[in-house]
């Protein structure tokens, strides 16, 4: 954009030095495998497409009124939003805390960074099964708690209609906190030395210097990490499926769990409708979230 007023001759030259056809293969793949299905979303959400009959008819807003009528639409939307916000908070708080804790380049810290990156490498499905085993009423966590309490503990960590969504969000955050840690470590390492030096000269206490000088300089890292955690977890599936399958009483049924379940039942139009809802929610949130975080970067 900086060169928007470049003379026509330059434009002409660009055409031969950086020909547009280099874009073509990528654009074709994006069009076929991303854009066209998304356009289909806007079409088939208004039909009665299902596995029970061969023809597909337009039905207007029937799918939306039906899903809104029985409360599924808004409860799934609410649960997805709550889940995404919780994940974004936990993942970034843990990631930042780890980055600050492990900032110095000692052998132990390098080992610890690698250890906290292991969950990032593992399949989210596997992570879900591990925590299901840990958190069962007769699972390992209750065993340990029972040992210290001196009596049997049988808390159903994944069976509470209010708090299980928080537990599952914590698991999701545990899986990805190693990536946030690396993003924040990168931010901490690229800080201009003279600003830090000035802070030291002031003789401010370490924690105060951190919050007033170094944390604001982390703004780009925060933008990237919060935006990807928030918008990425809206598209979550594996961890919820492997721990609760949307239960208990559908209180952890995020949109993708609903889509998976109704697709399996052959109700393709309903699944498409929810897929469109997810798309619209992420699209509507992406722009304000990214703009808000960017503006914060500029102010600081």
């Amino acid at each position, binding site marked *: 954009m900086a060169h928007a007023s470049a003379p026509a001759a330059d434009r002409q030259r660009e055409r031969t030095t950086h*020909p547009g056809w280099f874009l073509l293969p990528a654009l074709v793949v994006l069009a076929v495998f991303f854009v066209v299905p998304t356009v289909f979303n806007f079409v088939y959400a208004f039909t009665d497409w299902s596995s029970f009959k061969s023809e597909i008819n337009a039905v207007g807003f029937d799918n939306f009124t039906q899903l809104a009528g029985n409360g599924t639409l808004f409860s799934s939307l609410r649960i997805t939003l709550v889940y995404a916000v919780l994940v974004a908070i936990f993942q970034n708080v843990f990631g930042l805390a780890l980055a600050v*804790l492990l900032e110095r380049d000692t052998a132990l810290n390098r080992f610890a960074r690698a250890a906290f990156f292991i*969950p990032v490498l593992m399949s989210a499905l596997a992570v879900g099964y591990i925590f299901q085993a840990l958190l069962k009423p007769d699972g390992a966590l209750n065993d340990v708690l029972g040992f210290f309490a001196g009596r049997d503990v049988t808390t159903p960590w994944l069976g509470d209609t209010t708090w299980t969504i928080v537990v599952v969000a914590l698991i999701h955050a545990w899986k990805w906190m190693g990536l946030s840690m690396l993003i924040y470590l990168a931010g901490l390492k690229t800080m201009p*030395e003279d600003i830090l030096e000035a802070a030291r000269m002031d003789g401010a206490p370490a924690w105060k210097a951190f919050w007033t000088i170094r944390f604001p300089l982390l703004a780009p890292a925060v933008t990237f990490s919060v935006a990807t955690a928030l918008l990425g977890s809206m598209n979550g599936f594996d961890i919820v*499926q492997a721990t609760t399958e949307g239960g208990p009483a559908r209180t952890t049924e995020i949109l993708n769990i609903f889509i998976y379940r109704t697709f399996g039942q052959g109700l393709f139009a309903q699944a498409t409708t929810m897929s469109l809802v997810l798309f619209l929610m992420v699209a509507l949130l992406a722009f304000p979230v990214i703009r808000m975080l960017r503006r914060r970067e500029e102010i600081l």
Partner: protein
Amino acid sequence: MSGATLRRRPLRERSAWSRLQPVVTVVLVAVFVGIPMWLVVMTAGKSQGDALSPNLAPPTDWQLWENLREVWDRGRIPSAFAGSLLVMVPAVVGVLILGSMAAWVLARRTGRAYAVLYAAAISGIVLPPAVVTIVLLLRQLGLAGTATGMIGVYAGIYLSTVIFFVTGFVRTIPLELEEAARVDGAGPVTVFVRVILPLLRPVLATATILICLYVWNDVFYAFFVLGGRLDTLPLNLFQVASAGLYLNNWHLIFMYVVLMSLPLLIVFVVAQRKIISGITSGAVK
């Protein structure tokens, strides 16, 4: 840098925290990474009766080999491993080549049309793919349930990520390097292959790691696209676990988890420093 920070702080504060920090680190690693990993490995070595309610006790009788053999057959590990590779390798290679080509031109061209194209091309980073209608499209194309269809879908999903990372990187490469080659009579293809691609190595390495990770572990898109017609590792873990076959067979589930995680873990242990520094330098500019 940290050394200088420490020297200026009051002596007491420094020594207290610098003695405490290693202890805190070891405890956190042991509790939050050690315990879950311990649970997986111990349970993978147990007999079915032993593993019925998974706990942190070591197996009374190690059965690693028996469990491995059972899961090998029941989870169709060889064909799942082959399927995972068959999909991952072309998807990652394709996405890197097509993405770099597009990113180079998007970074260098200045017209308004290219700014719009760039915004559109990277919007896939956050926008969720239309999983249900992808199935419909692939059926119409005759690609449903095939490796080709799956590769195309992954390419469509992760191209945005590659274009985003590589475009940012190309903008830091001085135009003079290209000019020098062009003066020698090199065309755009030669400039791209000889000058740009070799310089992209660090950013492509980071992108490779991230995309391998996503594709190797993906079960959600594979479920819709492949629908059980091609085995992949996560898909088989998911199918056998949710079909109830492994109900309370925690020893088999965790043996599967160990086998599935090993390839990535081995790569990580071997190239650990490179991977971590690659992601740290690529994530934030």
